[in-house]
């Protein structure tokens, strides 16, 4: 069962200023393309319906003028679209914000690592596959990869930005209204490329602050014997070779950080709902 049910994932529903720019360009292109198509179709239909005349053909001058006019209109239109595209690119790259959140996004085969940077290293948050951002506040995203090229794509918030090994790409985005947005990997990266999704939660500032605090805390302690037995199994089995759970001795970084796994709504890179059944199987 796809977790996509119920989550927004569309470039045509922009939720922030960056995706709004892209959306505007898309609309411009769409309507210009429609207009061009209508005009060209009209001329084509007219050409089919025109009666054959007895004259030998159109004069050279008229032909030349007609073609030249069409070319000129095309060039002007294309140039206009180019200007629009460049302006959109500039708008996307311009930074006029303060107090951003900075997140390092690292693509792995086949999951997403999110590393929140703060001025105090002790406040760093590391999580996987589910990103929370505050509404109305700029988020700087730095993408890179640990193995092959991936691409970070949350269509409601921004376009595709490649995550390239040994290289950092930086963009910024902002969500202007709360919601849950689904994203996925947009660069073929191996067998599970199609199953490499993520969820971005845009939370109101107070909800986000609570989430930050909760993520910084170590794993909760429990006295439930089933939970304790599970902890014992986790710490003595291969799990610790790849996973971290802060507050325990598990500190592997080859796989996703599992501290506060229960706070995430999906597992397996946004593919499966986070339920006991899915986690067990």
């Amino acid at each position: 069962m796809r977790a996509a049910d119920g989550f927004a994932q569309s470039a045509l529903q922009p939720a922030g200023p960056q995706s709004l720019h892209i959306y505007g360009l898309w609309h411009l292109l769409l309507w210009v393309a429609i207009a061009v198509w209508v005009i060209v179709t009209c001329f084509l239909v007219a050409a089919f319906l025109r009666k054959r005349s007895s004259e030998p053909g159109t004069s050279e001058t008229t032909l030349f003028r007609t073609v030249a006019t069409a070319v000129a209109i095309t060039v002007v239109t294309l140039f206009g679209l180019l200007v629009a595209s460049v302006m959109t690119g500039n708008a996307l790259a311009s930074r006029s914000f303060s107090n951003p959140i900075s997140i390092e996004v690292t693509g792995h085969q086949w999951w997403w690592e999110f590393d929140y940077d703060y001025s105090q290293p002790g406040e760093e948050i590391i999580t996987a596959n589910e990103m929370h951002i505050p509404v109305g506040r700029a988020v700087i995203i730095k993408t890179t990869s640990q193995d092959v090229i991936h691409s970070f794509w949350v269509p409601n918030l921004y376009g595709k930005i490649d995550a390239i090994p040994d290289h950092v790409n930086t963009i910024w985005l902002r969500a202007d209204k709360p919601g849950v947005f689904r994203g996925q990997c947009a660069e073929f990266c191996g067998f599970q490329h199609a199953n490499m999704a993520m969820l971005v939660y845009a939370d109101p500032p107070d909800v986000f602050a609570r989430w930050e605090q909760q993520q910084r805390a170590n794993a909760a302690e429990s006295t439930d014997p089933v939970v304790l037995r599970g902890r014992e199994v986790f710490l003595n089995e291969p799990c610790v070779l790849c996973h971290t759970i802060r507050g325990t001795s598990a500190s592997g970084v080859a796989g996703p950080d599992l501290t506060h796994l229960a706070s995430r709504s999906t597992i397996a890179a946004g593919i499966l709902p986070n339920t006991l059944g899915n986690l067990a199987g």
Partner: protein
Amino acid sequence: MSSPFRSKNRIGGAALVATLLALVACRREARPLRDEPPERSLDVTARESPIEPGGSKLPDVSMKSPAEGNAASIAEGQRLFNWYNCSGCHSQGGGGMGPPLMDVPFTYGNEPANIYQTILEGRPNGMPSWGGRIPEYQVWELVAYVRSLSGNEPSAATPGRSDTLNKLTTVQLK
């Protein structure tokens, strides 16, 4: 109107199409996503010594590696070699805390079954015991990669590009 599709061209065209189809139908090596655990012989596993008492030698019934010569497995083995910190002690084959893996013979044997046992059981002078920590199919992938470090895997299957600061390819090792 003359047709371009004369019988001579038709046969030539059909032959071309058939050749192309045959080439396209060539399959690459099988890429097992997850191997079945091999059948482990209960009686005899790999021998670490070449001498057997009694003057004659029994036939070899040790486990066979499913990853031998398989490029995908060796590439996975390379990833796991770094992931599980094998490279921390053995570097990129040159050794360090642990012995080098580029030279044969190995102390505890370099047949696939020997290396498999070494990884699972550990060895007294410092090799940790990974049994129960790594799934068996991954151990075979590591075995294949370790053998490639000493040039014992076909050069067509070993990773050609040096991903690290200084790693020799099989061709350079020979």
